[in-house]
């Protein structure tokens, strides 16, 4: 009886969380999966969230994942300002990632609506809407599909205020949101992270928040405060995985500042989006191995215009830098970081700026775990930079 019970219960207790297409090597010690429940990048306690955002004990917090936080931000913006509207493909029923859940019901289909299937139309429509004084949130279903809208973004939204000049007309009310980044099985067309392409265009702000609370604050700022068009990139793999305490009320976060997540004196690691979590893991591993090591971790969050001052201040302190991003190596955001760091901290540098990025390949399905930067590659780059 007892042995049968034990066998049965051990079967039931056996975790079946691993999926065959995304499994780790069983001998992996460094390349473990990010434990989103324990990662220090997220505010897992009310205290952590309150400290981070300078909130007193009377401020309410909500436990939310990334989609819920995005939804919450849009909900707040729409409640506060009648000029805010949301549109895109499939947003009315709640959106393919549930980011707009309940919004059409609450605010009506004049303010939350589906457009026909046309990214160039969505972007152009959004620009016109903003030019006429509304605050449109235009959703592109996947960053991989933003390319038909590229002309509208680069030649129109980005140039609008500049070409208008003294007329004062502009389309700064526009926010273009899109899920980006690898997700485990997205392959060529559901994994792209095109932030570097937009960073090479003057006139739009490109941001990528790392967490639910950051997403909420930055999205509210983008919609309600910022008078430049914003490209708001949401790492889709964090949509459900990242959960934390988020301030319930509306709040603003800057769109042009990086944030030091962890102070350190020996090495600066700069990243944004999902790789930040991997950087955090790599940092923990390396700090355990190398006694006395302290790594400074920076979330860039504003891709362009970006916070040169914070990054340079850090590297001038530590003398070593590693930049990590998912998108390919060549001409990625890391290249700009590296160039700027060597300009601004050349004599202080003890090692070349290392970049950990996707290889210069497309995001082939079966090869994803070898392409997207993992903890081992980040750990390795950090170690080699420290030992240079």
């Amino acid at each position: 009886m007892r042995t049968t019970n034990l066998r049965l219960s051990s079967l039931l207790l056996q975790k079946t969380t691993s999926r065959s297409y995304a499994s780790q090597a069983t001998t992996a010690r460094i390349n473990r999966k990010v434990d989103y429940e324990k990662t220090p990048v997220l505010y897992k306690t009310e205290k952590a969230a309150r400290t981070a955002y300078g909130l007193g004990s009377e401020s309410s917090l909500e436990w939310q994942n990334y989609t819920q936080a995005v939804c919450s931000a849009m909900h707040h913006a729409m409640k506060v300002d009648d000029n805010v509207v949301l549109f895109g493909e499939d947003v009315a029923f709640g959106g393919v990632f549930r980011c707009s859940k309940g919004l059409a019901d609450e605010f009506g289909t004049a303010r939350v609506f589906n457009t026909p299937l046309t990214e160039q139309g969505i972007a152009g429509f959004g620009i016109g809407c903003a030019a006429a004084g509304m605050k449109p949130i235009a959703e592109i279903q996947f960053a991989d599909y933003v390319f038909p809208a590229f002309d509208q973004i680069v030649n129109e939204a980005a140039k609008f205020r500049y070409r208008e000049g003294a007329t004062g007309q502009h389309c700064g009310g526009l926010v273009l949101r899109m899920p980006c980044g690898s997700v485990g099985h997205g392959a060529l067309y559901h994994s792209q992270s095109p932030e570097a392409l937009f960073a090479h265009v003057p006139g739009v702000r490109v941001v990528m928040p790392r967490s639910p609370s950051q997403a909420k604050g930055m999205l509210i700022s983008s919609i309600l405060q910022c008078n430049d068009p914003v490209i708001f990139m949401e790492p889709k793999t964090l949509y459900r995985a990242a959960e934390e305490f988020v301030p319930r009320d509306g709040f603003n976060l800057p769109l042009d500042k990086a944030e030091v997540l962890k102070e350190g004196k020996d090495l600066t690691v700069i990243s944004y989006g999902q790789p930040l979590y991997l950087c955090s893991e790599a940092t923990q591993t390396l700090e355990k191995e190398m006694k006395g090591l302290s790594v400074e971790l920076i979330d860039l969050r504003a891709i362009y215009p970006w916070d040169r001052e914070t990054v340079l201040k850090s590297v001038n302190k530590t003398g070593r830098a590693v930049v990590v991003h998912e998108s390919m190596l060549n001409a990625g955001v890391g290249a700009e970081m590296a160039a700027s760091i060597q300009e601004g901290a050349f004599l202080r540098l003890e090692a070349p700026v290392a970049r950990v990025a996707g290889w210069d390949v497309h995001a082939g399905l079966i090869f994803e775990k070898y392409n997207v930067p993992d903890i081992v590659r980040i750990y390795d780059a950090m170690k080699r930079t420290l030992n240079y």
Partner: protein
Amino acid sequence: MRPVPTPASATVTQHVYPVRFKSTDSSSPSYQPSVSQRDHSDSVNFPGALNSKFTSTMVFQNPAEKAAMSTYRIMDADGNIVDNTRDPQNAPDQVITTWYRNMLTVSILDIIMFDAQRQGRTSFYMVSAGEEGIAVGTASALEPEDLCFLQYREQGVCLQRGMTVKDFMAQLFANKDDSGRGRNMPVHYGSGKHKIFTISSPLATQIPQASGAAYALKMKRMIDPNVKPSISVCYFGEGAASEGDFHAALNIAATKNCPVVFVCRNNGFAISTASIEQYKGDGIASRGLGYGIDTIRVDGNDIFAVREAMIQARKMALAGNCKPVLIEAMSYRVSHHSTSDDSFAYRAKREVEEWKRRDNPITRLRKWMEKKGLWNEDKEKEARASIRKQILQEFSAAEKMKKPALRYMFEDVYEEMTPDLKAQMKELKRLIETYPKEYDVSPHEDGIKGLNQ
């Protein structure tokens, strides 16, 4: 324009929530699942074609077999009224005379500026010969609050709406009075006062923007019913209508009931590409039907028909829950595409001369006015002389004026100049001061001081 707050603290905002607009737009119902195919029904019940009846005769619809959409005309090429049901003169004599003078001004300005480019006094120009009627005629039917999106051959719209020759010259010479701060190529006009969004070179990009702006106008009126009903009006050529943006724009405008009037200037050419190479269907008008949009084709050389169509289109666009309207105005591009084009490389000079002589909007209206006793040869001579004189005066003044200060290269990229741009501006100043003989900054207002921060 508040700056984005500085870091370290995220401010928690407490808001008093205003009255929230919550009504549902009945024009965009969410999909209601319907009963499955009824027995013995003669119509299709698929969600995609709810009005379609079954047929057991297999017929491929051949568009070539259908008659082309008719072209509405009130006044013929000799200035005679052929549609007696409408009073073309729904405006007083002197207003009609103003339209005529505006078309004349455009035409004379065009000739002067084209020659100026050939003389090297300006870098580029685009003439709108033959199309002045479309521009002035449609614009005459607009309200000041209507939002205008142009392509590049609608200087008549700008003039009719109140921009001055001085405004044109400032833009053409990219001088310090140019609202565009010298950033745009010639003829890329814009005006905040006259609600004309600054023209951009990529074609058709303005079309979905016009749909979005119209939607915004509708929303603003829903939020505040006291706001005056306004439309957005969007001009483009038949060539631009091949771009994806055109299709996206019409489709969204129709599905979202946007009060936008699309005006297509079908002048037969897109640079050297004649319309027979641009499309196979019945012009652009036939496409409106495909998108579920009320459409009319008009004789673009008939200013009365163009104006009437716009008056009616505007009414239709704003009625009820609003809707888009498409006007295809037919004309002939008498001019070269631009000063960078010699159209005799791809069309016979004789063909152009015949159109110029035989029929254009200016001579048509002139004939009508002369028949009515509103105009004569003396008035014509006087008008041409005084217009020409005014234009040449403004030309001369604008040519001599200083160019915009150098700081305007760095401003307006973002609402606030970023630290990067400030640093770059400083760097440029350093370079010019280090190599003063290599740069002549005197044409720019404030010279080197224009880079001070």
